[in-house]
């Protein structure tokens, strides 16, 4: 009998008082894990697998799933100029975020981090847009840009009554930048908070030492603060790009992809063609494509850029 017991049973814990509760523990484990496992499997894992499955079918979501077309949906998607436009727009937003939003957030974090009077109030204000619903933010900016009686139109009316107010959201060349302004307004505070947390981890005496050695303010920032902030910058860029590939709410409210798909993005394309036109197979293929793009990007980014941050971090 003794010889057949498994190694787990013969482990150190066998002789502790807790071993008497092993049967109870088995029940606890099952009862405690079951509800969340069931919900997680039904509403996360199965849909994710189904998305992959549906993507190989031509399916309207109602009839039987029989019309297997292999990679047909993917071929169709990659040949559709509207989809390619959407991918391009997603990446353009990502690049704009990297070039404008993140440097602005770093700069502000450096300003707020000093013993600035009222800095807690500033921090509260800067983060505020991030907790508002993206839909609400979209409506606010839709109003600001509205050429008939929006905020910008009102400015023109007051100071240049003879000029026609610009209609940024109706201009295919301007619409994406107009969206980007709203996106920046909503998200820069989040990145700012990330940088503030990063700055808090830089020991004061390192900067003090550089000062004593005669470094001026810019030199301290360039050679001490920014390098030590490196892992935060890489993380913030990572989150910003992943977020940029998934925008939906704001674009849906402000332009719905228009004018003529000039502000089309992948998530919106999935919604239009997958659900509104009842092409669920095709829409699922778009979802899978979004996931693959995010996944490949995430993998490459973590392997190539965040490698030094993750090594030594056993938690993940």
């Amino acid at each position, binding site marked *: 009998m003794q010889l057949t017991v498994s190694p787990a049973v013969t482990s150190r*814990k066998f002789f502790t008082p807790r071993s008497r509760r092993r049967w109870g523990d088995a029940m606890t484990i099952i009862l405690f894990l079951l*509800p969340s496992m069931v919900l*997680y499997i039904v509403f996360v894992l199965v849909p994710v697998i189904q998305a992959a499955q549906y993507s190989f079918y031509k399916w309207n979501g109602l009839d039987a799933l029989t019309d297997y077309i292999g990679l047909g949906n993917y071929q169709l998607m990659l040949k559709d100029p509207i989809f390619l436009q959407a991918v391009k727009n997603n990446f353009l937003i990502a690049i704009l975020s990297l070039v404008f939003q993140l440097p602005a957030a770093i700069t502000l974090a450096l300003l707020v981090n000093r013993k600035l009077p009222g800095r807690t109030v500033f921090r509260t204000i*800067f983060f505020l847009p991030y907790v508002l*619903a993206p839909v609400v933010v979209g*409506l*606010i900016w839709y*109003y600001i840009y509205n050429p008939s009686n929006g905020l910008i139109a009102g400015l023109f009316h007051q100071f240049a009554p003879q000029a026609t107010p610009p209609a940024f959201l109706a201009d295919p060349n301007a619409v994406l930048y107009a969206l980007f302004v709203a996106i920046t307004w909503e998200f820069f505070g989040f990145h700012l908070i990330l940088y503030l947390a990063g700055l808090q981890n830089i020991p004061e005496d390192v900067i003090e030492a550089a000062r004593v050695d005669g470094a001026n303010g810019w030199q301290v920032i360039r050679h001490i603060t920014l390098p030590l902030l490196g892992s935060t910058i890489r993380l913030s860029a990572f989150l910003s790009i992943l977020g940029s590939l998934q925008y939906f709410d704001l674009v849906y409210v402000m332009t719905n992809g228009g004018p003529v798909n000039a502000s089309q993005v992948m998530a919106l394309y999935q919604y239009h063609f997958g659900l509104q036109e009842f092409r*669920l197979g095709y829409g699922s293929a778009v979802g899978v494509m979004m996931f693959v793009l995010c*996944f490949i990007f995430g993998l490459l980014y973590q392997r190539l850029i965040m490698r030094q941050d993750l090594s030594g971090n056993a938690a993940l």
Partner: protein
Amino acid sequence: MTVAVKESIIVEQGRPVERIRRRRDWAMLPAFITCLIVASIVLIPLITVFLGGLRTNGELLNKPFSIPTALHFENYQKVLAPGSPFWGGLTNSVVILIGTLALLLVTASPAAFVLARISFPGREIIFNIFLFGLLFPLTVAVLPLYITIRGLGLLNTAWAVILPQVAFSYPVTILILRNFFRAVPQELEDAATIDGASRLGFLLRVLLPLSRPALAAVSLVATVGSWNSFLLPLLVLNDESTWTLPLAVTQFQQQFTTDWASVLAFVTLAMIPAILIYLLAERQIVSGLTAGAVKG
């Protein structure tokens, strides 16, 4: 005599210190002004939207920045009238929020407890399956999710939003709670066991009360997520009576395209709950949202 000497010393020492402080204050002026400008870029849209709700549509165009001369409460009255979509949206959003929070905490804390404090074969595998979900935003699986919910006959019910929201919150929630539960010393559990507490008793009477900060962070993250969610409700709530606040406000805007003053009143009222919660629990919300992202 002694008093006078002391005073003079204080004055002597005070001067240079003051001068340095004043110099620092001046050096901060550009930073302060920059922050002031950015703060007004954040606040001006919010304030004009709020004030816009108090104007007539004609005033909106003519003087968008001036303080309204006569306050027109009729826009807010229109939005707050009994039976207006605002109240329906508010009720549905609150129901979904409470359902999401309750179900999430009741199911995620026992799971995190098991994954943190009971060792059994396969534990790390199960934990990693949960972590795997961090890779999938709801957006990429939303169409099959719609089919699943339709198959379960849950379309146009609060469950259609609550269940997927809870399921997609598990990865971050279980990760944060598990890390917190692990940090509680084993001696505490042994002591509770000797005092006759069961696993459940230890979880309910010792671990959860100790974990209030983590529970608060997790709940606030879920609150913000649930209150603001849009894509999932848009797909699964088609009946007007089931719309949440974000759906109600967009539909209201599409219905009253020319009546911007009323739309702005609605937008303002839709923002107020989120702003209130944020101001009340700023520290936990900020740390929870950023920690969730960092962990994710």
